[in-house]
């Protein structure tokens, strides 16, 4: 973001699509909280009175579970622990760097809060710069912040997904503004920490920015190498140990029906179908991964390659949080960069074309609010409902062209017809 950019002289209220969006996120959140509240008053019990601030286990459990183990990082004892550490090397290094103080959970909580504040303030400023009145920008920002279920889950669990969120957000915004080198570095960092953000490297190829794509791969490899070296002087040994840890994730978590209500991956839909019949999911993981890889490659070269860069950002953001065999709900934070870009587009879109954006915003609202009401036969189905909404959002991203007029924003290809342009209004498709 250009810090010297000034706020627009003329200010205006929320455009129609954003008013619908604010209405959708607030009413869905009220319905969700109201549902839990009434269920609690009626004594319906769990999961009907499920509060979205509670999951069984201690506050900050994801972080606190790892603190003891990660304190041995860099020592031989680190490799002889009983519990698995199912994270890539760069994630373990990031976690180690978060635990340098005597009470590591406090600075980490501060980091989580600061990240939320940074996103909110940054988003507010961007909306103001695009010409929204202070009250409208404030209403939009506050509504997104208070209804953010992925962020609340992140705070509750203390998960290291925050690093991926920061790297992906800065990376996508840099790409959107045309700062490709920073975008490449950030996407490389995110890939090193969590692997699945590698799909964002696909943003550079249709624009023939091969150097930036290579820079992303190089950054991911370099950071992983540094992390392995920090883990042990024998990098090869550390690499093999980490491979076993990551395989354990596939064995125990990807194939596990546990926490199915928090899992919005496409595979969670398959799991839900299989689990009800007590089928062993384990043998289905590898075929699913291979089939998904083939589908993604075909989709990328046949469709994603040809759509506008903004559509590519949205499509790849969705794929980054759905194609893994297990994807818990805090990973949805990676969608907020795409949402911010969509909000910018909404502000710039003429009134006549606003209605075309409403389906995007409605699906975002369904995905990002708590969904306490999604319960069937005593089991939460929030993850499965989100997976279906994300699939619908992916289809929209692939079929409905979006464009931005933001100064310094990414080039729009000649084939990409904008929502709001005459071509789009006349129903032409790229």
């Amino acid at each position, binding site marked *: 973001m250009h810090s010297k950019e000034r706020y627009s002289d003329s200010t205006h*209220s*929320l455009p*129609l699509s954003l*008013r*619908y969006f*604010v*209405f959708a996120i*607030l*009413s869905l*959140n*009220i319905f969700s*909280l*109201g549902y*839990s*509240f009434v269920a*609690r008053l009626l*004594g*319906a*019990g*769990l*999961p009907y*009175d*499920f*509060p*979205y*601030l*509670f*999951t*069984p*286990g*201690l*506050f900050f459990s994801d972080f606190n579970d790892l603190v003891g183990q990660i304190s041995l990082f860099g020592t031989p004892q680190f490799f002889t622990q009983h*519990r*698995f550490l199912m994270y890539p090397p760069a994630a373990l290094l990031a976690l180690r760097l978060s635990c340098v103080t005597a009470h590591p959970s406090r600075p980490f909580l501060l980091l989580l809060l600061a990240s939320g504040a940074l996103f909110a303030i940054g988003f507010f400023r961007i909306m103001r710069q695009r010409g929204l009145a202070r009250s*409208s920008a404030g*209403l939009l920002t*506050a*509504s997104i912040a*208070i*209804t953010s279920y992925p962020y609340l889950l992140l705070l*509750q669990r203390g998960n290291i997904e925050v690093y991926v969120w920061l790297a992906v957000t800065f990376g996508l915004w840099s790409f959107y503004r045309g700062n490709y080198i920073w975008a490449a570095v950030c996407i490389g960092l995110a890939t090193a920490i969590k692997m699945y953000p590698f799909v964002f490297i696909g943003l550079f190829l249709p624009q023939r920015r091969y150097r930036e794509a290579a820079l992303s791969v190089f950054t991911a490899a370099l950071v992983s190498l540094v992390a392995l070296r920090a883990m042990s002087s024998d990098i090869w040994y550390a690499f093999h140990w980490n491979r076993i840890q990551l395989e354990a994730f596939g*064995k*125990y978590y990807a*194939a*596990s*029906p*546990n*926490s*199915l209500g928090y899992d919005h991956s496409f595979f969670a839909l398959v799991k*839900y179908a299989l*689990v*009800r019949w*007590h*089928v*062993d*999911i*384990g043998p289905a993981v590898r075929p699913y991964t291979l089939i998904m890889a083939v589908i993604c490659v075909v989709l990328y070269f046949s469709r994603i390659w040809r759509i506008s860069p903004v559509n590519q950002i949205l499509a790849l953001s969705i794929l980054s949080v759905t194609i893994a065999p297990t994807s818990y709900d805090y990973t949805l934070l990676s969608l907020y960069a795409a949402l911010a870009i969509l909000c910018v587009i909404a502000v710039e879109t003429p009134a006549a074309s606003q209605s075309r954006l409403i389906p995007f915003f409605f699906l975002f609202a369904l995905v990002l609010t708590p969904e306490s009401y999604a319960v069937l*036969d*005593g*089991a939460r189905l929030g993850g499965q409902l989100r997976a279906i909404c994300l699939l619908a959002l992916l289809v929209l991203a692939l079929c409905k062209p979006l464009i931005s007029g933001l100064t310094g924003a990414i080039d729009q290809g000649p084939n990409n017809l904008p929502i709001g342009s005459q071509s789009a209004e006349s129903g032409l498709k790229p």
Partner: protein
Amino acid sequence: MRSDSFLSSKFLSILLLLCCLLTAEEAIHLLRTHPNRLNYDQAATKNFGCVPRDAGKRLFLCPIPGYGTMVFLCSDKHCFPKEPTTGLTIGPAEEKLLRDL
């Protein structure tokens, strides 16, 4: 009159306020009841008022302060929240979790 005229800033602000109130109510209830204070990882060994639900003592029904009850799946070392989709049946993946983790 346009169909979207009800979406005024004033109306949306009232919704935001209602949202804040419900969130605050939820947070206050949570702080009063402290369901997250108990470490359910040790539900089988610590006395949280959990009751075994099977002969093998691998399923425990535990009270969650302020919210009702929840079934946990326990090995000698750890407990996990039981996935409700499978009811009280322990599936192959859950057997693997109990055995190895």
